[in-house]
């Protein structure tokens, strides 16, 4: 049994670190606006409800994300047949959902609010580590849904 190969992640926010190859997730075509980043790793944050999505391909590209249901218990995810087929999803047990967060700031740079993108959640197949930003165009969700006060 050989040691699992690792991937070196060079990250602007977290420095350089190695992760086992099987922790790398692939977003085909990347996220909209970030086509050059197709490989990402999830990095734990200091808070259990939040995780970083760090690009392996571009050190400066990273996103804060959260599973939507902690904050939006009624959130309904609707996946098209195409999305399910593209990710080869087999069922809820191997499906993880993350919503990217925006920290809004005052002119002075102070955080004023946090919003989640519920319109375009990232859907991840934990079995093959493939992910896709799904666009639920028929839903009433927006890209700036307030996360509420803590």
């Amino acid at each position, binding site marked *: 049994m050989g040691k699992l190969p690792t991937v070196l992640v060079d990250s602007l926010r977290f420095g350089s670190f190695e992760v086992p190859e099987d922790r790398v997730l692939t977003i*085909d075509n990347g996220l*909209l*606006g970030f086509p050059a980043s197709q490989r990402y790793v999830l990095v734990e944050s*200091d808070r259990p409800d939040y995780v970083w999505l760090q690009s392996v391909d571009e050190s400066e590209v990273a996103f804060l994300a959260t599973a939507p249901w902690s*904050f939006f218990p009624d959130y309904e995810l609707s996946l098209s047949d195409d999305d399910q*087929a593209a990710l080869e999803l087999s069922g809820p047990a191997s499906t993880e959902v993350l919503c990217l967060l925006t*920290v809004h700031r005052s002119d002075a740079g102070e955080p004023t609010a946090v919003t989640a*993108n519920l*319109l375009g959640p990232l859907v991840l197949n934990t079995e093959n580590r493939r992910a896709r*930003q799904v666009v639920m165009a028929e839903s009433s969700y927006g890209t700036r849904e307030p996360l509420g006060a803590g």
Partner: protein
Amino acid sequence: MLVLSRRANESVMIGQDVVVTVIEVRGDQVRLGISAPRSIPVHREEVALEIRQANERAAAAAPNDVAGLPSPPGS
């Protein structure tokens, strides 16, 4: 940019896998049918633009923002 004319039921092929067909023309509205491999996401431009802008805004988060994030209700 390529500009070409099509009538209802005529198509345009983009590469070998993508076919865009004009299904109906009524007034200033055109109904399109798009046939593409599942690996190619197809979105209305304004929706794709909104998601892109949201992604670009989200990419500005900094590690020291985490401490100020809210906790889920009931936790």
